[in-house]
C-alpha cells in the first residue's frame, strides 16, 4: 500500500477520537473556570478556581470521595479473592463443567439497571424480599439493607456482577498454565498452598493486575446501581463522586461546579489509566 493511502485509511479513526476527546474535554475545563448556573443565567464571567474550591469544600465532597474509595476497594478485594478461589475450584475436568461456567459468568451480562432492581426488590426488600424471609425463618429481624447499610448493599450488587468477570479472565489464563510443571510439583510432594504460591500465583500475576486496573476504571464510574437503588442516600451515605457530579449538574444545575468535579474525576481516572495502558502496552506486539 502506498503511504498516502495508509494515512487516508488511518485518518478517520484518529480524527474522530481526537475530536471526541478534545472538544468535550476543553469545554469541561472551560466551564469549570466560569460562573455558569442554569438557574442564574445572568451571572457570568471568569472566576478562576472558585468552582473547584466550591466543589471540594462542599460538605458532600469528602464523604463522596471516601465512599468511592471504600466502594472500589471492597469490590476489588471481593472480586479478586472470590474470582481466584472459584476459578481454581473449577480448573479441573468434571461432568457439567460447561454448565457451571455458564452459570458463573452469567451475572456479568445482566444490565446494571436490571441487576440493581433484582437485588433491591426481590432479594433485599425488608418486607417481601427473600433475605427478609430467611431472616424471619431463623428468627432474626430482617435488615433494611438499603436504609441501614446502603454502601454495603451496593458493594454486594457490584461484586455479584464483577466476580464473574474475574472468574472469566482467571479461568482463561489458568488454562494456559503448564500442567506438567504442576504434576511434577505434585510428585515432589508440594501441597496445594505451596503450589498455589509458587506456581499459580506467579502465573496469574499479570491477569490479576489487568483485572484490578480494568475494574478500577469501571468502578470509579459506578452510576446505574446507585441511581436505581439508593439515589445516593440516605443522606450521602452511598453517594460516590460520579453520582455527586451528576447531582450537581442535574439537580443543582450548577454547570461550573459540576465541570470542576468532572475535571477532578478525569484526573483521578487518568492516574489509574497510566498504569493500565503501560500494562497493555507491554503485551502489544508491533
Amino acid at each position, binding site marked *: 500500500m502506498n503511504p498516502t493511502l495508509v494515512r487516508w485509511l488511518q485518518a478517520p479513526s484518529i480524527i474522530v477520537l481526537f475530536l471526541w476527546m478534545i472538544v468535550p474535554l476543553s469545554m469541561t475545563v472551560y466551564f469549570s473556570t466560569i460562573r455558569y448556573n442554569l438557574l442564574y443565567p445572568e451571572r457570568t464571567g471568569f472566576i478562576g478556581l472558585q468552582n473547584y474550591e466550591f466543589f471540594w469544600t462542599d460538605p458532600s465532597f469528602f464523604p463522596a470521595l471516601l465512599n468511592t474509595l471504600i466502594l472500589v476497594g471492597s469490590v476489588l478485594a471481593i472480586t479478586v479473592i472470590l474470582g481466584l478461589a472459584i476459578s481454581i475450584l473449577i480448573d479441573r475436568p468434571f461432568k457439567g463443567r460447561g454448565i457451571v461456567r455458564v452459570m458463573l459468568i452469567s451475572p456479568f451480562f445482566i444490565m446494571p439497571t*436490571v441487576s440493581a432492581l433484582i437485588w433491591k426488590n426481590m432479594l433485599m426488600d425488608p418486607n417481601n424480599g427473600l433475605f427478609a424471609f430467611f431472616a424471619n425463618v431463623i428468627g432474626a429481624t430482617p435488615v433494611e439493607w438499603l436504609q441501614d447499610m446502603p454502601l454495603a448493599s451496593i458493594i454486594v450488587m457490584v461484586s455479584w456482577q464483577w466476580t464473574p468477570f474475574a472468574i472469566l479472565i482467571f479461568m482463561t489464563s489458568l488454562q494456559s498454565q503448564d500442567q506438567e510443571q504442576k504434576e511434577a510439583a505434585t510428585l515432589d510432594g508440594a501441597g496445594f498452598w505451596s503450589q498455589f504460591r509458587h506456581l499459580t500465583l506467579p502465573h496469574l500475576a499479570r491477569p490479576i493486575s489487568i483485572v484490578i486496573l480494568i475494574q478500577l476504571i469501571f468502578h470509579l464510574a459506578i452510576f446505574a446501581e446507585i441511581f436505581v437503588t439508593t439515589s445516593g442516600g440516605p443522606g450521602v451515605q452511598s453517594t460516590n463522586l460520579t453520582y455527586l457530579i451528576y447531582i450537581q449538574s442535574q439537580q443543582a444545575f450548577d454547570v461550573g461546579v459540576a465541570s470542576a468535579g468532572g475535571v477532578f474525576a478525569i484526573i483521578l481516572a487518568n492516574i489509574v489509566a497510566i498504569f493500565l495502558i503501560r500494562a497493555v502496552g507491554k503485551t502489544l506486539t508491533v
Partner: protein
Amino acid sequence: MTDKQREHLKNRIAVVFAWIVACIFFFPIFWMVLTSFKTEAQAIAIPPQLFFEPTLENYTEIQERTNYSKFAINSVITAFGGTLLALLIAIPSAYAMAFNTGRWTKDILMWMLSTKMLPAVGVLMPIYFLAQKTGLYDTKGLLVIIYALMNLPIVMLILFNYFREIPKEILEASRMDGTSTYNEIRQIVMPLAWGGIASTALLSIILCWNEAFWSIVLTTTDATTLTSFVASFQAPEGLFWAKVSAVSTLACAPIVVFGWLAQKQLVQGLTFGAVK
C-alpha cells in the same frame, strides 16, 4: 485410604462445591425469570413461592400496556448502529495499521485506549449541551454516535490484533498478481478476518446494550433504550415485581446468550488483548 482415593475424594468435594457456588451466583437470575411467570400477588407472597402455576400474563401485558417494543427496538438500533459505525471507522484504520506498522502505530493505539479512560461524568455537561444545541438530544442517532466513539478504541485494538495474525505472505502474493487494495481487503483480508470481526462486533454489541449512563442522561422518551426503561421502574410506587421481571428477562436474555457464545473472544476484548 490410599493417596489415589484421597485425591479422588478431594476432587469430588471440589466438584460439589463448584456446583453450589455456581447455583448461588446464578440464583438471582433464576429467581428473576421465575418471578416473571408469577402473578403480582405471587411475586410478593411470603413465604416465597417456588412451585406455582406459571402465567404468561406479564409478558402479554408489558407488550400491550407499555412501550416495551419501542424501547427494545431502540436498544437494537443503538447497539447495532453504534457497533456498525465503530466497525466502519475501525476496519480500514486497523487494517492500515496492522499491515503498515510505523514508528507511531503503538503510540497511536495506546493513545486511543487512553480516550476510553475518560470518565463519562467528566464530559457530561459538554455532551449534554452539544446534544441540545445540535437538536440531537433524545435521538437514537446521538446514542449511535456516542456508542460508536465509546467503543472505537476497544474495537480498534482487537481488530488490530486479529489483522496482525493474518500471514503477510498471502497479501504479498496477491499484490504480485496485481490485486487492487480494495479487492485485497474484500477478497482476502475480510474472509480471513471474518471470525475476528464477528466476535469484536459481539463484544461491542454487549457493551452498548448494557450501557446505562448515557442512555439515562441523554434520553427522555423517544430514544429511551431498555437500560433506562428498566431504570424507570425504580420508583417506589412501581411495585410491579412480576412485570419488572418480565421486562428484565426479555431485556437480558439475548445478551446473556451472546455472552455465552463469545466467552473466549470476550476475554481478549475486555482485557484489551492483554490476556489471551
